[in-house]
Structure formats: C-alpha cells, structure tokens
C-alpha cells in the first residue's frame, strides 16, 4: 500500500493546486470548465484540506476535549484542593491530600489490593486465555458455535454477571459450598465474600472469568494469521508440539500479546464495577481497589479533593502500561514493514 498511497498523494497535490488557482495544471488533464483563475477566497477556503478537516474533526474533538481532556486536567487540579461536594470549588492546599494519603493505611492497603488483583488476575487471564485460544484454533465440530458461546461472558454487562456471582458466592445458599459438601470435601459453608482471603480470591476469580474470553478471542484472531505451512515445515524438521509453540506461535504472537495484555492490565487495574457489585470493598477493606476507594472517599463521603488524589495516584501506573503498549506496537511495525495499514 505504501508507495501506491504516495503516488496518489502527488496526484492529489496537483489537482488541489489546480483548484487553488495556481498555474501548474498538468497538461494531461482535460481543460476544466470552471474558471480557476477567478476562484474567490471562499472557493479556495472551501477546498482547502486543512480547513475542511477542521470541520470534520470538530464533533469528535469537542466531545473529547470537553469531557475527556479537560476533566483529566481538572482531576489533577482537584487533587491539590480541599473541594467537597456542594461547595463548588475548593481552596488550593498543595500536596496536603497526598500527605494525608501517605500516612493512610487504608490507602496503602488499596494499592496493595490493586496490584495483587491486577497481577494475579492478568497473569491467569493470559495463561488461560492463550490456552483457550490454542484450543479454539484447532479443528473441531461446531467450531463457530463454541467460539460464539465463549465470548458471552464478555457481552453480558459486568454488573449483571457479578450479581450472578454474588448469588453463587452466597454465604448460605452457595452452589459451590453445596456441591463441595455433597462431595464430602468440606463440612461447612465457605464464607466466600465474608472472609478476607476468600473474598480476594472470589473477586479475582470473577474478574478472570470475565476477562478470559476477551484475551482468548483476540489472541485467536492473531493465531489465525499464522501460516499453517510454518507448522508443517517445523513438523517435517522434527519439532515437538512444544517447540512449535515456543519457536513459531509465540514469537509471531508477541506483538498482539503485548497489546492485548496492556488493555487487559489497564482495565483490570482500573476495575470498579465488579468489586462494587460484589463486595463494595469489604470485608474490612480487604477488596478495596484504588478506584473503589476513590469513589467512596470522593463521592460517598463527599471529599472530592481526596478522591481525586487517589484517582490521580493511579496515573503513573497507567502511563507505565501505555508505554509498554507503545513499545509492543513499535516492534509490530518493525516486523511488518513501515506502514501500519
């Protein structure tokens, strides 16, 4: 595509120039019927690409600037104020919010929880997702149907499936406890969401359950681009199935893995709804993530400044994730040539 595009580009420049009333009309073009020499300023403006693009970009830019870029900076500013709900703009207090957070054990607990949640859930999502993608890439009956079914947890709104998990994790009527008791493995109900360690495990499991389909289906799309002849050649050379995975599948998949896992880490790190529907941060803050703590302090307790400070504290982690994504993409470009299309 690359060189072809550039070829078009020069033609375009020529045509645009002719519209703009310059004298470089290529002789090969038929004599235009319009009088280019006399085109008004309005005509020139109307066909100017930059001017047109400004109008085409305007709606998207308006939304993104008003409701994304501006709040992003406002959030950072608010974290330096003592703003509260209903007060309408607080006073500048410098780093006071952050100094409070520095000595706040609940905040550090939420940081720990967030890191634990992100690392454990992402690692397992990656392992299971890759495994599932490899399974789905093989030939089997009802392939399309199975693939469609696998993605359902990703379609259903998180809160609604979290509610189903809430019922599955119920302290009295949990189907898991019931089954395990009937199998004779345990003798009393497990308090899934009432005990700190169980609660952490339970929310991580629910997150993995929801995230695996996304990882699996996107990695599957990557797997489908790997040419089967590579595997055939490797098999002829005597490669084992592990070697085929390690030296063909994995290297070819690395770039897409980088992107998928960045998204996965990003969304796990900033997760809110699953926790809020299942535990609201309890028991005893054992499952509070930075996002839920920020909601609780900022909106429920009304201390907007402090909530904004917790939210702002998430930004460095997000920047790290984005940087990884960017390098992943660079490597992909390097593999495929210069253009990204």
């Amino acid at each position, binding site marked *: 595509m690359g060189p072809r595009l550039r070829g078009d580009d020069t033609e375009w420049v020529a045509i645009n120039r002719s519209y703009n009333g310059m004298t470089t009309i290529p002789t090969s073009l038929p004599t235009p019927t319009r009088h280019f020499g006399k085109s008004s300023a309005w005509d020139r403006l109307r066909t100017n690409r930059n001017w047109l*693009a400004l109008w085409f970009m305007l709606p998207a830019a308006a939304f993104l600037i008003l409701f994304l870029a501006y709040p992003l900076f406002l959030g950072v500013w608010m974290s330096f104020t003592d703003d509260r709900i209903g007060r*309408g703009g607080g006073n500048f207090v410098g780093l006071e919010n952050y100094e409070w957070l520095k000595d706040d054990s609940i905040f550090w607990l939420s940081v720990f929880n967030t890191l634990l949640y992100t690392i454990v859930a992402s690692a397992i999502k990656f392992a299971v997702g890759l495994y599932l993608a490899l399974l789905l890439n093989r030939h*089997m009956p009802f392939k399309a149907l199975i693939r469609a079914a696998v993605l359902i947890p990703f379609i259903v709104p998180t809160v609604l499936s979290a509610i189903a998990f809430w019922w599955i994790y119920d302290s009295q009527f949990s189907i898991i406890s019931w089954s395990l008791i009937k199998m004779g493995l345990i003798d009393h109900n497990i308090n899934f969401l009432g005990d700190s360690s169980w609660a952490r495990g339970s929310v991580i499991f629910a997150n993995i359950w929801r995230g695996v389909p996304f990882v699996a289906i996107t990695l599957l799309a990557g797997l489908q681009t790997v040419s*089967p002849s590579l595997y055939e050649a490797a098999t002829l050379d005597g490669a084992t199935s592990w070697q085929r995975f390690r030296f063909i599948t994995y290297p070819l998949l690395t770039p897409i893995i980088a992107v998928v896992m960045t998204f996965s880490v*990003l969304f796990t790190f900033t997760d809110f709804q699953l926790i809020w529907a299942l535990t609201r941060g309890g028991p005893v803050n054992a499952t509070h993530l930075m996002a839920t703590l920020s909601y609780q302090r900022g909106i429920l307790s009304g201390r907007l400044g402090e909530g904004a400070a917790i939210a702002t504290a998430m930004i460095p982690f997000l920047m790290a994730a984005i940087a990884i994504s960017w390098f992943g993409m660079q490597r992909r470009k390097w593999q495929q040539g210069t253009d990204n299309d």
Partner: protein
Amino acid sequence: MTDHTADQHRIVPAATVEQDDHSEGMTYLESLPRRIVTLYIPLFIIVVILLFPFYWMALTSIKPDEQLIDMEKFNPFWVIKPTLKHINKLLFETNYPRWLWNTMYVAAAATTLSIIASVLAAYAIVRLRFRGAEVVGATIFMAYLVPPSILFIPLASVIQAYGLFDSPLSLILIYPTLLIPFSTWLLMGYFKTIPFELEECALIDGASRWQILVKIIVPLAVPGLISAFIFSFTLCWNEFIYALTFLQSTQNKTVPVAIVNEFVDGDIYKWGSLMAGALVGSLPLVILYAFFVEHYVSAMTGAVKE
C-alpha cells in the same frame, strides 16, 4: 502445495483423519483418544465454567422461592414446577421497564452521536490527510486508554456545573468519550481499505467532500459501521461508574445501577427477582450479539490489531 500434501495423506487409510469437519493441515497426526484428552475435555471444562453463571441466573429466575432456599429436599441444579413469578414481579411491580428503557435510550443516543462524530473524524484523518493527521490519530488512540475510573470525580463537578446532574443527557454526552476513540480507530481501518480511485473519480465529476463521504465512503463501510455500532452499544449498556455517579433519582437509573442499588434489601427471597433482573437486562445484548457475532468479533479484534 498444502492441498497437495493434505490430499496425499487422506488416501492413507491408517491415518485417522476427521473427514467430517473439512480438516486440513496436520490434524491427521492426532489420534481420536489424544484429541479427546488434549482438546475436548479441557475445552468442555472451560466452556462449562464460562457459561455456568448464566445457567444459574436463568435457573434461579424461574425457581419458586421454597426450592431456592431448601437445597436438601430439591436438587438445586434443576427446577420442578418453574414459575414466572419473579419475572412478573420485576416487570409489573418495579420500575424495571423504565430502567430498561433508560438504558436503551441512553445507549442508542450516545452510540449514534459517537458514530457520526467518528465517521467524520476517521474520514478526515485517513483521507483528508490534513497537517498533523498522524498526531491526531495517535492522540485519539491515547484517549482510548484513559479509564473512567480516574475521570468520574472531575466529571461529576463538570456535570454539576452544566446543570446536567441526575439527567440522562449527562450520560448521552459523556459516553461518546468512551466510544469515539474506539470507533474512530476501527473506522480508520475500514476507510483505508476503500480504493482511492473511487474518490478520485467522484472529485473529478465535481462531488464535494461531503458528497463523497455520504454517497461513496459510508455505503461501502457499512460492515464497519455495524461493527462499531454493536460494540459501542454493548459498551454503553455495560457502563456503570458514570451512571452510578451522575444519576440519583430512581426513575432515571439504568439497569446495571438500578439492579445494584434498588433490589438489594435484607429479604432472603430477593434472589429470584434479582436474577430475573440480571437475566432480562442481559438478554437484549445476547440476542443482538447472536445476530451479529462476526461483526462483534471483528470490532473487538480490529480495535486491538490496528
């Protein structure tokens, strides 16, 4: 070449080729027992775990109360004498239809707004190639990576300042920030595949850029538009934190927020209607998804691959 070797192997009767599914490549190297252990059993376990919560949701929503709490007398994995009581109660004794309508209305409006803005933006970035188009494209991708969890507090004060608090309009205006980056990125990929020549012809025939967009580009990009629409609609339906923060009054809530806040009381009999609420709230999306699986998957993978 590949076909040739595959054909040669099919002649060999000893190789247990699975003929029924048009197998190709190296499937013939595996025996059936091996396939059962390495493929069917693990796949079956994973699929069962992935789908079990929905089975459980559906089962609970049609179970009579006494079967729900008595797990000794009745097998919990099945239902005797299913009832529509919970769904009835949901639809006629609560605001559920209203919440469903709110969700749909907000999702449809926000998606439509975003698609319009995204088509214009993607066309400008890919085809007008204005000064700085590449930078704008990269910036829009970055916007995709800004999560709602760090924006809801400042946005709450922005919404308050504009007087949109507790109004569905606030969500309609804010959801596009989640959808535009994604849809623009996806549509850019589609627009790039449309040949330049079509546009050149139209320009020479005197069409304006607007006419080209409406009469040539958009009709050719319909599959991309459907993908973007389905995916965006699902995202809106799924969105929780903004809806939770900006909506206060019961009748304005969307389904996910209402389920979490309005149904939760101390009643041990709440589970039936709670599960019915979750089921009814998920069904429209699942049905939509069933019709457009391919579009949905291409939207999801397209956004990652681009």
